[in-house]
């Protein structure tokens, strides 16, 4: 229940920002966001994990419609990306939860800590990425994407070494 509400809150926050930031495409952003939230609610209610990616895609589309026409890079995209990730993780936690399975407290704490660490790392990576994109706007998206890939690969290598 708590995780489901958390997922919904994260998605609603992302959609609300998209709608609030929208210009002339506000109705499109609002419509896509509403469908996105509705999909997640249905998915949580009927425990259908297949609706989560579609809800996230629609929320991202709502955000894209919201920032359409801007010239500058939106710094809040870093938080929106993390919000979408949190929505996905918490929703899958909620749907995957089985009341018949008794979970140890240590496991729940560990899982929550892992999620928090992931969100913090994602926020950090996003800030770095957007800062780089703002500075080197002329270089374009390709360079930004390569930068993301490099950052993510570096994190993965570090984690692998730590695990080993």
């Amino acid at each position, binding site marked *: 229940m708590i995780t489901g509400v958390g997922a919904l809150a994260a998605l609603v926050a992302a959609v609300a920002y998209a709608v609030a930031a929208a210009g002339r495409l506000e109705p499109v952003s609002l419509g896509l966001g509403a469908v996105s939230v509705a999909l997640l609610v249905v998915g949580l209610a009927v425990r259908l994990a297949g609706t989560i990616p579609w809800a996230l895609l629609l929320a991202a589309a709502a955000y*894209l419609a919201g920032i359409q026409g801007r010239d500058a890079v939106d710094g809040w995209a870093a938080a929106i990306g993390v919000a979408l990730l949190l929505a996905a993780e918490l929703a899958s936690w909620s749907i995957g939860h089985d009341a018949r399975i008794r979970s*140890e407290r240590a496991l729940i704490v560990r899982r929550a800590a892992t999620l928090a660490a992931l969100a913090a790392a994602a926020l950090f990576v996003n800030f770095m990425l957007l800062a780089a994109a703002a500075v080197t706007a002329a270089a374009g998206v390709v360079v930004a994407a390569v930068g993301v890939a490099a950052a993510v690969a570096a994190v993965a290598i570090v984690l692998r070494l730590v695990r080993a």
Partner: protein
Amino acid sequence: MIRSATPKLAAYAGLSAIGLLAALVVARPELVALTAPFLLALAAGLALATPPRFDVEVALDRRRVLEGDTVTARVTLTAAGPVDRLDLYVRLPPGVTLEQGGNPVSLTLGSGERRELEFEVRAARWGGHVLGPIYLRARDPLGLLVWERAAPMRPELRAYPREDALRRVLQPVETQVFSGNEVARAKGEGIEFADIRPWAAGDSLRRVNWRASARRSALRGELWVNESHPERNTDVILFVDSFAEAQLDGRSTLDLAVRATAALADSYIGRRDRVGLIGFGGILRWLVPGTGLVQLYRIVDALLDTQIVLSYYWRQIDVIPRRTLPPNAFVIALSPLLDPRSVGALLDLRARGIDLAVIDVSPLPFTRRPTGGLDAIAHDIWALRRGALRHRLRRAGVAVSEWETSAPLQNVLEEVRAFRRYARHARV
């Protein structure tokens, strides 16, 4: 362990691909920022995912219990490497319920950690119950990959039925040659007075009935001696019909029959009688008559394996080994009288002159009478036909008593005893 990817892995990969592609198409770095957390989750999850290495063992603190007793199952997990999320489930067979503890349980194991999980299970029904297998499912920290396996160890729990204490059991018509607790009809050396007769050569003086001799010597001048009935043992064969049963709310006619059989076996063996067992059903089981505690354990162990096995084979009494039914044996049948094969076998036994008593474990309490209509009429006709079947057995000289679930077994035995004592035995 079998490794497989979760739908989450595919979803995150798909979202990342779509996000990056869309970022390139619309030339917005914000979309890369939306995608980056999912890429990071993928990379971190796959980097942290290592195959779980652990051993699992399960043990019961007792292997043999009485029906209704609880037993502690202990699952020991020994991890050679870290296991981030492990779901563990020990499958409990029907008849065994969880009393205390977590099953299934989700936990985490550190590298080199040894963990013991305990939970109490209750043997709610008699029988040989096999616990397990243990299903194990491990996940990486972010739930992208799953490893699954079923541990093969399956401890067996044997739950013996609780027996009713019987004050008095049925007395067979004939006795055997060994000493026991049953007063024989024949005359011989014993305690129970039978009759007096004129003294004959070889009679002990201790057996002379001086009072009778004094009365009669005035007339004929001879001595009279006491005759007595010897105490002998008997051969009792317990016949359990396992062709069919009626069940309701987890209880069945077979449950009652097995409990009654165990109680009867205990009582007869306590009287030093020889007791045998015939499980007559889809699977034929038998135990030749024997006596003593070992025989009692044999019988109870054989009863635990009794179950209803569907069979269309028209089995007759001929299939029972000859030595299982010794001469002058007393057969007590416990049957719901639902299958014509068992009814035919009982009539066949009686036709062969075998001393037979039938306890009809009534299936009526295990059925719900329909409220009305043709179904209710059919139910009533079925009940009447059961009555007619019992009458048919009685006409053949078989003592039959219907056992409702609410009545104690002793009541039913007294009813059978009354029939055998007062009813006229028909010659068939």
